[in-house]
């Protein structure tokens, strides 16, 4: 029964997919890419909270909990949850919730779950017993696109300056593409549109818009492209180039932190030159020949570099063969993605262990908070209540929460790497 309930829950969350004919055994398979989005849910909720407030946060949380549901059921669940936390039961505004729902649809954060509708002739599923029978679910691609845009702006700001990042932000805002599309480039915007956008956002930069666009298009990063010179110019953002640079940036950071700055220099040389001999690496690296050789082979041993053999003669003699080093970017991305997911799992394990270790204190703290809330609702001042936690318990709890917060921050950092590496892999597949 427990297994059945878990499978039922997973089906509603699209984690499992079932297939089979009537009176035949049903086969289930796991939707891995969908399942791997789970660690991103807190980030999605945070994005919606920052943009549209607490009501939107609650709505998205509920929809994520339920997987997919109808509008009416979602609004009803949200109202029930909000009524629990407010003193006056009449103050939960149904119209406001409706408008928040509409806003989330217009931003494409919520989409219709058309593939969940029953085939014609069959009765609708229990959860669909409403008018229209339209099921809604969270559109994860919209959130990934938002995160992508944020990363692009941050990347340009670190590489150039704030002005350049503002110009790129305007181009991204004007991007009119449908959120579900995993396209390689944004839609093109004209110079006049950029000027107009900057006038509204940051009028001081209007005079320098052309200069910033020239700097961005001349840069070897290739993120901003000039596609047409007619009428001042048309510009677009090349997402594929950005994903490549972003992934290289993350991988280089890993090499620098793990092996040191000298090794990072050697890795950068091989990455820039694509295929290069050992002797050439040591000349460019500006370090003793022996050190350069040792670091090069350290990277090779750890699978950050590969060797390509080029035979000069048909006898494949090692003396007459070129051994060229290169960075296997696609393989390395997959390997590091494995490490990222393992790291997230490790952090989750440690957090679970810490919370289990201090479960008594955490429960006590929750009971204390609930008591304060009830007292406040009854008009009693929280200061009049007896302190349920001793000072040493508070200290211990504070230390535990500090560790949990650090683990959460670590998880967010890892999710940035996962985004960079996953999108690079996807863009390579599409190209």
């Amino acid at each position: 029964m427990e297994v059945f309930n878990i499978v039922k829950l997973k089906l509603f969350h699209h984690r499992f997919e079932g297939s089979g004919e009537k009176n035949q055994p049903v086969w289930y398979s796991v939707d891995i890419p969908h399942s791997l989005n789970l660690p991103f849910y807190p980030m999605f909720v945070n994005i919606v909270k920052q943009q549209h407030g607490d009501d939107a946060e609650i709505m998205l949380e509920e929809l994520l909990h339920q997987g997919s549901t109808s509008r009416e059921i979602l609004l009803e669940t949200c109202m029930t949850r909000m009524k629990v936390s407010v003193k006056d039961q009449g103050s939960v505004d149904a119209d406001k919730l409706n408008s928040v729902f509409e806003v989330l649809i217009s931003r494409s954060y919520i989409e219709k779950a058309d593939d969940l509708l029953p085939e014609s002739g069959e009765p609708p599923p229990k959860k669909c017993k409403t008018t229209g029978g339209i099921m809604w679910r969270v559109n994860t691609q919209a959130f990934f696109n938002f995160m992508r845009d944020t990363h692009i702006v941050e990347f340009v700001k670190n590489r150039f300056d704030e002005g350049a990042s503002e110009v790129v932000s305007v181009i991204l805002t004007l991007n009119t593409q449908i959120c579900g599309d995993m396209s390689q480039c944004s839609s093109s915007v004209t110079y006049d549109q950029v000027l107009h956008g900057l006038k509204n956002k940051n009028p001081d930069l209007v005079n320098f818009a052309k200069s910033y666009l020239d700097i961005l298009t001349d840069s070897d990063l290739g993120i901003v492209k000039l596609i047409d010179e007619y009428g001042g110019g048309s510009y677009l953002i090349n997402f594929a180039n950005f994903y490549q640079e972003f992934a290289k940036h993350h991988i280089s950071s890993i090499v620098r932190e793990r092996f040191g700055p000298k090794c990072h220099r050697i890795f950068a040389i091989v990455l820039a030159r694509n295929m290069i001999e050992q002797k050439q690496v040591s000349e460019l690296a500006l370090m003793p020949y022996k050190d350069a050789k040792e670091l090069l082979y350290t990277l090779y041993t750890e699978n950050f570099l590969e060797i390509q053999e080029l035979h000069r003669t048909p006898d494949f003699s090692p003396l007459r063969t070129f051994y060229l080093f290169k960075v296997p970017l696609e393989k390395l991305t997959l390997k590091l993605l494995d490490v990222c997911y393992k790291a997230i799992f490790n952090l989750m394990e440690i957090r679970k262990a810490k919370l289990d270790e201090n479960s008594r204190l955490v429960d006590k703290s929750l009971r204390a908070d609930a008591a304060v809330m009830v007292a406040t609702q009854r008009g009693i001042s929280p200061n009049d209540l007896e302190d349920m936690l001793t000072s040493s318990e508070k200290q211990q709890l504070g230390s535990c929460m500090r560790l949990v917060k650090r683990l959460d921050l670590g998880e967010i950092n890892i999710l940035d790497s996962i985004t960079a590496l996953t999108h690079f892999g996807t863009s390579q597949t599409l190209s």
Partner: protein
Amino acid sequence: MPPRAAVLGGNENKLLEVLSQNPEGCTDKLLQQKAKLEKSALVASINKLLKLGRLEIKSQGSILIYQLRDVKSNEATKGMGQEEKIVFKIIEEAGNKGIWVKEIRTRSNLQLTQLNKVLKSLEGKKSIRSVKPVNDSKKKIYMVYDLKPDSSLTGGAWYGENDFETEFVDILGRQTLTFLQRQRSHAEVQHADPASAQRHMMCDIKQVKHFISQLGISKVELEDAEVKQILESLVFDGLVSRIHTLGEGGKKQTFYGAIKHKPLTTGISRVPCGVCPIISQCIPGGLVSPQTCTYMKEWLNF
């Protein structure tokens, strides 16, 4: 009693004068024509000068030419035996790139023991010296004593006594970066327009070379290629950017400028698991596990 210095006659002096005017060498016909000597007198003078070592014969295909020999090299080979002269000549021809023992043996056709004796004797007379190239310390390269070895042997300005001067290179790199960062700050303050600021902050190799020479850190004058090596190393470190433009006459020019922000530590490299060398062995409950990981404990308690 010291030996008398050889006395050169008028014919010999005439020949020497003609040869000094033709450093590339003369055939015997040209010599006869210019020195205005009869054949027999010419032959006698040539033989005398050859014995004194003032002349040497070289072949250009099937033609023999006579060339004036450097007095210094004459003095250098003074007192040398025949074998020593042959070996010294082979080493002299190699110039500042030097020549290794196997190559000398092939060209001189001497036995190894004999050759080693000759080389030891020449080294004792300070006519030649051995140099160990930086890339292959097992080889011994011989060259004329006073010659400065080529940079491919010594490694250039970065090597001192066959050791790479890491500290010197690091100091030069840091000072160059500071110079480029200062250029950037000045350009940003003086030019509000970002494109104009970028044009003024980017420096070419000559400007950086001038700055380094003014510093006075380097004992030797650095070549353009060596300054370029420093700048390229900063580019690979992610601290400096590089742009190529077309200069005067369509010639490609390269300019370097400091990047505003240093490369940040991002993503998983901020977490111990991202830089752990044994992450592949890590499983819960195993010998290496997240719960017992020392790196994780240090990170959480930091």
